[in-house]
């Protein structure tokens, strides 16, 4: 386990060191045209997007930007990212040349992420809409009527001013009381960033959130909001996991084939964001301000700590994520251990079909990535059932853990000499009592070290549950990164939390190991 954790830690550091080195956090200084980065780029400043015909584009997975970049710049190299923060970090660390983003989002980001500039602030325009399932036309019509209503009575202008014209970070989200009873609907968002959806002070805010909460109040809907990765929003809607999706989503032909969109609620303008040092100062439409960075190491850490945990009470996200991770790990372990014991018993049974069923289960589950299993259960098996994603995660990880544990148990039990069973039976114990009194205590000692390793993998594996909308520890760090664009602190912190969590849980298993060591037990007995 120690080797595994160390490996994980090394990998993370390996990924992050170059990032830190490239000065991701260094503010770009005025007149940095002569910087090495600019020189290596050919020494020529970019003046428009056409200078980047063969450049590296960073775009959001499943957005119109992807299609647009491929169509207009066929020679470019397009890389897909699943979150705004990854997109910006790739730009800051020089892994991409240009990022295509919504203009308002880009402006918000430029405030926190230093060293960026907007190369082109009107790449193209797209209408934004709220997504509905094709079979819920009624709900869509109700929303369209509501939209027409707020456009007519000035509410829309008020909201647009609040989130899009003024500084969205200073916007104060009005307190809207969404009904708790009545017709139930679920809204899925992916918390990319302002102005559409963001977590601030541990609350979901933004234009889309305000708009849909107002809609819920007007139509007396008991609306629940769930958080799902952006690329998974459309599949989640189609499979019935939610009834509406909204997060600055452009109305594209591609999407309109699968789902219905409301009328346009806002026009979304795409901007091309690049490193400020890559373009001539005169051509910079807008640049991010030079943040005041502390110079000492302690000062930097303190600032990171403040920015990533204290501001907007972000520590609550981490705490909630840790709780979700612990709960999932705990129940998956229990479920998996029970399933594993059952599968192991079936594998050792005399009935051929029982053995085959167990062997089939073990082979199938071990041959499938957990993330695929997770999505199969969520989007296929329980497609039309309104089920808590945490429950789905426990089921998926429990099933997966069970398959591994069954084999661990089996080798542990088969490793015990047959003579032990025979001696127990010959003495007059029944088969079951022989197993409980003689075999199990010995097998436990064989099994524990491997079981411990498998358990730790399970805890770490739960970091993929963001795919089905569980806000676990990893997802919490993603959300924080989407606000602070600081790759280093949230990731290292989360890595450390995982390390210590698995370490403490490992200690608990070590305790059981010591409890079952007969020689240590004798020492106590003799001493007593």
């Amino acid at each position, binding site marked *: 386990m120690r080797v595994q954790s160390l490996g994980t830690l090394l990998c993370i550091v390996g990924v992050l060191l170059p990032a830190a080195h490239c000065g991701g956090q260094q503010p770009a200084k005025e007149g940095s045209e002569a910087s090495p980065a600019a020189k290596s780029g050919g020494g020529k400043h970019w003046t428009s997007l056409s200078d980047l015909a063969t450049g590296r584009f960073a775009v959001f997975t499943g957005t119109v930007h992807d299609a647009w970049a491929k169509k207009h710049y066929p020679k470019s190299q397009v890389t897909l990212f699943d979150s705004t923060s990854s997109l910006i970090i790739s730009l800051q660390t020089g892994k991409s040349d240009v990022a295509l983003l919504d203009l308002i989002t880009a402006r918000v980001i430029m405030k926190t992420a230093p060293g960026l500039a907007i190369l082109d602030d009107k790449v193209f325009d797209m209408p934004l809409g709220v997504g509905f399932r094709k079979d819920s036309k009624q709900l869509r019509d109700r929303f369209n009527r509501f939209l027409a209503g707020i456009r007519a009575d000035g509410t829309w202008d008020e909201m647009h001013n609040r989130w899009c014209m003024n500084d969205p970070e200073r916007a104060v989200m009005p307190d809207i009381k969404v009904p708790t009873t009545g017709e139930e609907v679920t809204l899925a968002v992916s918390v990319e960033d302002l102005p559409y959806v963001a977590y601030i002070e541990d609350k979901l805010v933004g234009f889309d959130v305000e708009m849909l909460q107002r809609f819920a109040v007007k139509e007396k809907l008991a609306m629940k909001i769930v958080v799902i990765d952006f690329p998974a929003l459309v599949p989640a809607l189609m499979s019935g996991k939610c009834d509406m999706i909204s997060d600055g989503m452009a109305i594209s032909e591609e999407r309109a084939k699968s789902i219905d969109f409301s009328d346009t609620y806002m026009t979304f303008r795409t901007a091309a964001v690049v490193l400020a040092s890559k373009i001539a100062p005169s051509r910079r439409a807008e640049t991010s301000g030079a943040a005041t960075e502390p110079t000492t190491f302690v000062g930097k850490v303190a600032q990171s700590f403040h920015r990533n945990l204290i501001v907007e009470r972000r520590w609550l996200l981490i705490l909630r994520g840790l709780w979700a991770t612990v709960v999932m790990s705990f129940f998956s372990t229990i479920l998996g251990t029970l399933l594993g014991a059952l599968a192991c018993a079936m594998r050792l049974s005399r009935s051929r079909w029982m053995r085959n069923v167990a062997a089939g289960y073990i082979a199938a589950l071990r041959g499938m990535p957990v993330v695929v299993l997770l999505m199969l259960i969520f989007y296929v098996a329980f497609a039309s059932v309104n089920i808590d994603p945490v429950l789905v995660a426990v089921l998926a990880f429990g099933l997966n853990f069970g398959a591994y544990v069954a084999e661990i148990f089996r080798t542990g039990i088969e490793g015990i000499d047959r*003579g032990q069973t*025979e*001696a127990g039976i*010959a*003495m007059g*114990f029944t088969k079951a009592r022989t197993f409980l009194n*003689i075999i199990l205590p*010995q097998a436990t000692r064989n099994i524990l070290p491997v079981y411990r390793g498998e358990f730790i993998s399970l805890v770490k594996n739960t970091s993929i549950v963001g795919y089905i909308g569980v806000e676990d520890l990893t997802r919490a760090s993603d959300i924080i990164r989407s606000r602070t664009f600081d790759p280093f602190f949230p990731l290292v912190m989360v890595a450390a939390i995982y390390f210590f969590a698995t370490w403490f849980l490992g200690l608990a298993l070590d305790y059981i190991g010591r409890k079952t060591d007969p020689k240590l037990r004798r020492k106590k007995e*003799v001493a007593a």
Partner: protein
Amino acid sequence: MISVEHLAKSFGSVHVLKDVNAEISKGEVISIIGPSGTGKSTFLRCLNLLDQPTGGHIVIDGQDILARGADVPALRRRMGMVFQSFNLFAHLTVMENLTIGPVKLLGRPLPEAKKSAMELLRTVGLTEKAHAFPDELSGGQKQRVAIARCLSMEPEIILFDEPTSALDPTMVSEVLAVIRKLAKQGMTMAIVTHEMDFARDVSSRVFYMDEGIIYEEGPSEVIFGNPVREKTRDFIGKVRSLGFHIGNGNYDLYEIHGKIAGFCEKHIVPSKTTTVAQLLTEELLTVHVAQPGPVDVDLSVHYSEKQAAVELRVVSSGPEGNPLITANVPDTLGLDLIRSFSKDIIYTREGGRNKLSVQLA
């Protein structure tokens, strides 16, 4: 106490036990001897149903234990078993090995069980090892603990399955001494063993097992002193043998001579005797092959370690009659040679075949 009727046991197509019949009474010490692979251990393991018999009956105190609904675990509590590989519970101390049965199966209170366990350890001379774990004991100590563990259940009979086969020669005697002590105290026992001297001393009755049955049984003095049947004699006399089958007249005599030479060399038979054995083999084969009818001869060479004597046995098909008398050979030189080099010649008719046993001088 135990009555076994027509007991059979097969593993797949291998019939290990064919038809075993036996009676064991209270207070008897039965040794079960015989060559390897003749089902001695299987017989013992069938008695407490560690191996499920495929046929026959085992009746214990009037109760057929193979009947449906028989309480087998309860029955096993009354029969102890000592294994070749000890099989002490590896996760328990010696003391716990001796108390787990009485406490969990007989419902004895722990302090009482501990007290009697100490008594038993005194009997087998291992009181100071009460808190040791099995892997901290020597083989002989392990087996003595295993015997004490059996006794802790206060059994009516103990089955010993080759209790000394896995032991160093230096440790055999300490285990045998414990078993002798139990025999003296009148414990009923059935012992599968290869320790012949021990079996002769300790047992009241001996089962010689061969060919999947109890081939011969009798009091210890008879089986060891004067066994009735040939295979028993061979076994008791530690007879080694080498056999050939001749199916037609064109046999390879030089190959047979070579094999006899090798066999004799292996058992350190004097070279003069080897030459005689080869000579008589040649003459006996000539005589038998010349018999009327198809050639079907089995010739075997036997060497008894105990008596340092060589014997040739020839079994052949054909009309009844001593082949040496009905011999159809042009001259009597070969027959004279056979007679002059042998001490004793016995003719018998067994299973429709003629059999000649020729003891070399």
